[in-house]
């Protein structure tokens, strides 16, 4: 579907606003953004700048007010709610700030969850999930429940859950926001490896300049307007 050399994600004139009472609050203003396949893009900006909103729209979690989002040749703004759900299940992997693992399921079962919608046998699901956990070096923690894992380990399980369906894009919302520096470094290295070795397209929202440094490209959002990222100094990374 994706034509050779054309960007994987094509966003044109994207607008989004929220209604609070009678007030309409603009969040995104005529966003234009292209993301190539295999890119690792960091979206930065102050709180309330619209980063998470843009990420939600790219991931098909929210409806646009106007404009176009084409991913892998599919215009996702024209999909219905159920079509979007199906599309998300096969094309998007999610990594959240607070991991969002299901506490009553083991690491393996959490990773297996998205595969339930893929029509695989139990054995196939187990094999895929085990492989994904191996990829994040947690093969020895398969039967552990989230509460038995550290924050960094939980986030790695979340990454395994995000990649297990081999999605077109990975979206990560502050993936290191709740981690200590060592764990954050591990998670970022893992994401860099997914982008580098496995050519995964990753869009990451972050406040953390150190995390942004790991990305291949960077864009900056301020008051709903997308700009090129300002230079990040070394001191910001400390």
């Amino acid at each position: 579907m994706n034509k050779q050399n054309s960007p994987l994600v094509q966003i044109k004139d994207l607008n989004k606003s929220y209604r609070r009472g009678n007030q309409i609050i603009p969040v995104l203003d005529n966003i234009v953004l292209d993301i190539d396949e295999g890119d690792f893009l960091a979206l930065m900006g102050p709180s309330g700048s619209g980063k998470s909103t843009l990420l939600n729209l790219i991931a098909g979690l929210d409806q646009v007010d106007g404009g176009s989002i084409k991913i892998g040749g599919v215009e996702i703004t024209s999909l219905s709610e159920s079509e979007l759900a199906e599309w998300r299940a096969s094309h998007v992997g999610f990594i959240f700030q607070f991991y969002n693992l299901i506490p009553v399921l083991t690491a393996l079962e959490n990773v297996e969850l998205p595969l339930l919608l893929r029509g695989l046998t139990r054995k196939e699901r187990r094999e895929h999930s085990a492989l994904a956990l191996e990829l994040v070096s947690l093969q020895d923690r398969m039967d552990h429940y989230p509460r038995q894992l550290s924050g960094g380990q939980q986030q790695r399980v979340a990454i395994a859950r995000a990649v297990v369906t081999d999605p077109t894009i990975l979206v990560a919302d502050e993936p290191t926001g709740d981690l200590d520096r060592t764990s954050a470094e591990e998670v970022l290295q893992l994401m860099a490896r997914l982008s580098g070795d496995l050519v995964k397209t990753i869009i990451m929202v972050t406040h953390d300049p150190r995390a942004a440094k790991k990305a291949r490209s960077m864009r900056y959002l301020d008051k709903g307007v997308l700009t090129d990222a300002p230079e990040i100094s070394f001191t910001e990374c400390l």
Partner: protein
Amino acid sequence: MLLKLVLRNAFRHRLRSLLTVLGMCVAILAFALLRTVIGAWYAGVEASSANRLVIRNSISLVFPLPLSYRDKIRQIDGVKTVSYGNWFGGYYIDRKNFFANFSVDPESYLSLYPEYLLPDNQKTAFYRDRKSCVVGRKLARRFGWKVGDTITLTGTIFPGKWDFVLRGIYQGRDDTVDENQFFLHWDYINETLKKTVPRRADQVGFYVIGIAAPELAAKTAEAIDRTFKNSRAETLTETEKAFQLSFVSMSETILTAIRLVSFVVIVIILVVVANTMVMSVRERAGEYAVFKTLGFGSFYLSGLILGESLLITGLGGALGIVLTFPAAKTFAAAVGNWFPVFKVEALTLYLAVAAALMVGIVAAVIPIWRVASVRVVEGLGRIG
């Protein structure tokens, strides 16, 4: 795996879930017991035969009918057998030892009630001895009576101490037959009355007649009542079922109240389970948003919530149904003399199962609606 998730979700808050299961169990138990009480009230109606008519004084059952009507009734078309009797109203040792006791014409009466199974030798002994009686198996067991025992009843309607020799113990043909009754000879009482209160002699409280076929009931009843129209004691003839129902209708208000309470119990538990489900789902709003994010549609999420609700109500309901049997047995032992037939009917069990299912389904409606209507981003916003 979704089933596993339903199971684990259902018992994530063990205490809350167990209390809800327990509440459901008590509600279903109460519902089934109350329905059984209502069923017990109607036991006499259920056990009545379509081939029997009951004749009583048209003013009230309290007023007697002359024995002389017997021969006239016999001559009416459709009448096959005529028997008669009186409510004796005696008690054994103490007034609290209540049981039904009737003075009857033994041969005709027992021929009309083939459901009272009595060995031939006991039947013959009963017919031969005017001072004898037969009792139901449960009544004999209750007081430890054996064939040959002399039983003294104290009369309330017919004052005095009355001695009867127990000649037989009948058994019901099936479990709808009342085995708590006491039958004695009408002749024995009548002979005594002739000597002591002659104006009360040769009178019966009711006639029971056997008809050839149920379809003759209306015609025969009309013919009987026509025969005694404008007489000293006009009659009211009705099927045995209608006769029994007239007794039940006296307690109709109580029965309606019991019926109402049985439904109120279900409504209360419905609110409790619905509250549990709403709380559980609210606590997991973020998790459901994650499911939606991963591509799970409302169908899957509804299944998870409905499954959890049905699991809790199903467990409670099943436990309640299982406990209904010993509870009904204990209840029957305690009030057996008021409810001679007290058994949990199949319909009660079906209603209990239906009530448990209904509670499970209805309790899940609001949480399902909420989860389905919340946008993914709103749900995710609740996390952290």
